């Protein structure tokens, strides 16, 4: 996400500008002062020329020289105001942390209330008291900076105080003031200084504003704001007199503000690596219920015989997905799903199963390159890039249930309206009628009091109820295929069962085919009639669920099953895992992607990627050495590794 700006360049520019400003504020008056004061009535309102770069003012004085010469006063006033604001703010902020709870609350309330007022109003208030002039301007702008700086200091101090070393200091009996001085202040000094830099910029701009309004520096003295006031009055005659001081104010204001920002960004950037980088090495640890129950269930499922003659609801050939940077999360996948079928897609994290699911639903966005040889959904042939032409088809006949129900319903829209939307958009049904349909669907998925619930927002729903609402949302059309991407992972066990039961009922009652993405073998065994095993972006095995525990032919599938601990697994033994790690999707080997981790791998495996081909019945496998003996896979098939 982090698009890098050439920060080094920004910082360099800021530093150069700051050096220039420092130079001008020291040497500006000595160099240009005389010239700035030189009156020449013959030259009044002179245009820009080689002699007078920015022309001359009403008395024939050189505008460029006047802007340069007044740098010192402008900067000096800004520094003074910033010093008042930063000093006062830090004092109040630190005071809050050091004082007892009563004063802390009181100060906090005062700051909150004063933060509500724009700084300029506070500055004007002080100005009204002290009268128009530099004193009023500086104190006014300074005072206006106190509340925001106090709040900033207090926030920083509070987060530093929450750290462990401060807690340790407290335990050692170090006093509050001492803790502040020794442990907290040094740690918040850097962000404070950067913000102080920005405060100088803000002061400069604000004091110039007051001078511009005639409330700051009074003639005959002049600063940039005062010069700008004069320039604006004469802008028709002599625009450069206004543009000159404008350039000075903008550049100086920018230099301070951008410097604060550029260096602050640097700091927060250094914290980034600790947030990212958990990597692909995540291991699959699946659990299984009681094997006896499962087989009973599976054999029952198998009796839901589907006539082979019926055309597939989804037929995909040669599907490929590529991300920028050469990553190929999905490589040459061919899948066929028949009407009413319940198919599982399993694999480790990072095997590409979620990407495949999104690609099958035509939901990958433009940043990924998706291509296929054939894509036929509900009898309609979809060519690559033409997904948008089939909006109604996909919108009404393909439903998607996402992993995290807390996040898949829009928090800002009432649940009923979210469901109703689909009918309104794709069927052109009116608001009231579609809402009534939404209530009916909510009732169908056993949400109690659906009329009341439809008018509620998602945050008023529990997790399981939200997932049921998502399923109801999918049923607002006439889905032929429901893609469920780990629909139960985020739910607790009892709720998981209800959601699966609901999916099954939907499947049985409406004949909607279900593609269930999961890494939970027990869920797969109880729910699906066919399993697709994915490894490194390819489907490596396509097997009826009934055969999974005994007839898996791919070494990876067997290893997966072996790695599933059952209820009898000795808790004293380490859990079985598959040795090695999945390959990087941006650097895949030429041959079989599993060869590195496979005990049976030979030269052929390393040089030639096996194609998915029929081994037995309807079972397909992509392996040069398919395991064809039908023996139950022992739990210790793969030696336990301690990684």
């Amino acid at each position, binding site marked *: *996400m982090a*698009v890098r*700006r050439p920060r080094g360049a920004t910082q360099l520019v800021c530093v150069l500008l700051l050096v220039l400003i420092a130079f001008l504020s020291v040497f500006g008056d000595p160099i240009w002062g005389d010239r700035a004061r030189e009156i020449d009535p013959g030259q009044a309102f002179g245009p820009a020329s080689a002699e007078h770069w920015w022309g001359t003012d009403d008395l024939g004085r050189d505008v460029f020289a006047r802007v340069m010469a007044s740098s010192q006063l402008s900067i000096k006033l800004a520094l003074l105001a910033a010093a008042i604001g930063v000093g006062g703010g830090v004092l109040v902020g630190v005071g809050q942390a050091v004082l007892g709870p009563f004063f802390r609350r009181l100060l906090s309330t005062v700051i909150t*209330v*004063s933060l*509500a*007022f*724009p*700084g300029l*109003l506070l500055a*004007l*208030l002080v100005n009204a*008291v*002290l*009268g128009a002039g530099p004193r009023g301007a500086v104190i006014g702008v300074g005072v206006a900076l106190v509340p925001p700086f106090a709040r900033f200091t207090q926030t920083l101090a509070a987060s530093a105080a929450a750290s462990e070393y401060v807690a340790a200091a407290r335990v050692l009996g170090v006093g509050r003031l001492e803790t502040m001085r020794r442990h907290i202040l040094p740690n918040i000094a850097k962000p404070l200084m950067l913000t102080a830099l920005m405060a100088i*910029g803000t002061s400069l*701009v604000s004091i110039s*504003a007051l001078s511009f309004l005639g*409330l700051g520096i009074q003639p005959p003295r002049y600063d940039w704001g005062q010069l700008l006031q004069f320039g604006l009055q004469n*802008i028709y005659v002599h*625009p450069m007199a*206004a*543009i000159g001081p404008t350039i000075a104010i903008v550049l100086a*204001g*920018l230099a301070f503000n*951008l410097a604060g920002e550029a260096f602050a960004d640097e700091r927060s950037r250094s914290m980034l690596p600790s947030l990212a980088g958990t990597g692909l090495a995540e291991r699959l640890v699946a659990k299984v*219920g*009681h094997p006896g*129950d499962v087989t009973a269930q599976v054999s029952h499922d198998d009796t839901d015989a589907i006539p082979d003659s019926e055309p597939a609801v989804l037929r995909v050939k040669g599907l490929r997905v590529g991300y920028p940077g050469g990553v190929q999360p999905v490589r040459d996948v061919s899948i066929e799903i028949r009407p009413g079928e319940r198919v599982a897609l399993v694999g480790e994290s990072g095997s590409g199963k979620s990407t495949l699911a999104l690609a099958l639903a035509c*939901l990958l*966005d*433009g*940043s990924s390159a998706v291509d296929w040889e054939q894509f036929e959904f509900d009898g309609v042939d979809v060519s690559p890039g033409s997904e948008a032409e089939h*909006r109604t088809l996909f*919108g009404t006949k393909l439903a*998607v249930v996402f992993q995290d129900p807390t*996040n*898949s*319903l*829009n*928090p*800002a*829209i009432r649940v009923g309206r979210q469901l109703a*939307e689909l009918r309104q*958009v*794709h069927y052109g049904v009116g608001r009231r009628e579609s809402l009534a349909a939404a209530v009916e669907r909510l009732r169908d998925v*056993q949400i*109690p009091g659906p009329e009341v*619930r439809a008018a509620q*927002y998602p*945050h*008023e729903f*529990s997790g*399981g*109820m939200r997932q049921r609402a*998502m399923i109801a949302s999918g049923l607002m059309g006439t889905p032929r295929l429901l893609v469920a991407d780990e629909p139960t992972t985020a739910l607790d066990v*009892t709720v998981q069962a*209800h959601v*699966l039961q609901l999916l099954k009922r939907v499947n049985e009652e409406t004949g909607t085919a279900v593609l269930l993405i999961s890494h939970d073998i027990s869920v797969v065994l*109880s729910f699906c009639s066919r399993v697709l095993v994915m490894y490194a972006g390819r489907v490596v095995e396509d097997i009826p669920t009934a055969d999974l525990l005994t007839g898996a032919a791919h070494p990876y599938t067997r290893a997966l099953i072996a790695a599933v601990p059952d209820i009898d697994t000795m808790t004293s033994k380490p859990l079985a895992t598959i040795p090695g790690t999945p390959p990087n999707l941006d650097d895949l080997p030429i041959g079989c992607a599993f060869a590195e981790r496979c005990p049976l791998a030979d030269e052929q495996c390393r040089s030639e990627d096996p194609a998915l081909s029929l081994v037995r019945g309807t079972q397909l496998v992509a392996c040069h050495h398919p395991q064809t003996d039908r023996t139950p896979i022992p739990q210790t098939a793969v030696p336990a590794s301690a990684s």
Partner: protein
Amino acid sequence: MVALTAPPTDSVAVRRRSPWPAFIARRLFRLLLGIVVVVTLAFLVIHLVPGDPVRLALGPTAPVSQVNEKRAELGLDQPLQVQYLHYWQNVLTGDFGTSIVSRQKVSTIISARVGNTATLVAVSLALTLIGAVVLGMGVAALSYRGRRRWLLAAYRFVASTLNVIPEYVYGVALVYVFAVTFALLPVAGDDGLSTLILPSLAISLGPIAGLSRIVRVQTEEVLGQEYIQAARSKRLSALRIYGRHALPNLLTAALTIGGLLLGVLVASTVVVENVFARPGLGSTVVTAIVQRDYPVAQSVLLLLGGAVLVVNLVVDVALSLLDPRSLIKDS
């Protein structure tokens, strides 16, 4: 395996005590506290002035009798606490005294100009919100997921630069470009819509840049959410996805900052009215400060401060209506 036949048990209590009364009470208390602070500060303006405010206002040549008469008129000869109570009484009855300089009633001066200022603030706010949302969402949508990196880099640089430039500089630049160079729009005065364009642009350009950065980050976050994926899975039009599904979710943040910005907009108005010579509260207060016309200065500041407070309350309530979750977070 858990029995699949168990009825669903995961229903959450449908009736929850409404969080609204407590919320409103808290906000009203904060408003009240703010108003007390503002009134007290406004009251103190004249009392904190070093030296004799009446002498300063009337000038060194005014006769002593006139100064004393004015002091009595302002009630400055009474004890402080009496004056304070009296001030409250006056504020609550809408009596803000008379101008020392023009001898007009302050309430008359204010009511003649408040409309002008309010219009400018309202137009600027609308411009800021619309501009920032369109710009922020647009950039986020165009640069989503690492597309058009150059656009994002350019946008970031331009936005952070424009954000820092003050309103009066925009004012001067707009005057130069549109009035001096091209002579398209009037630069000064108050004459309907055409005189509103440049001032409101001057006020809102900076806030648009700043707020759009927040909107962009929010949009990027919202677009990555599963509910947007879910909305896409319903194959809704792009307009519906961005407008109906994404916008409400980033509006809370945008409006929260927008509400805070309103104070800044009010302050900017004070400055910009002077750039464009618009008769409003801003030009009034600046003239009053220069002329040491304390009754006018303190009343206008009181009014502007009070307006900011009330507006903050309105924004808070509006936000909670828009996004009910914020109520729960708040309590």
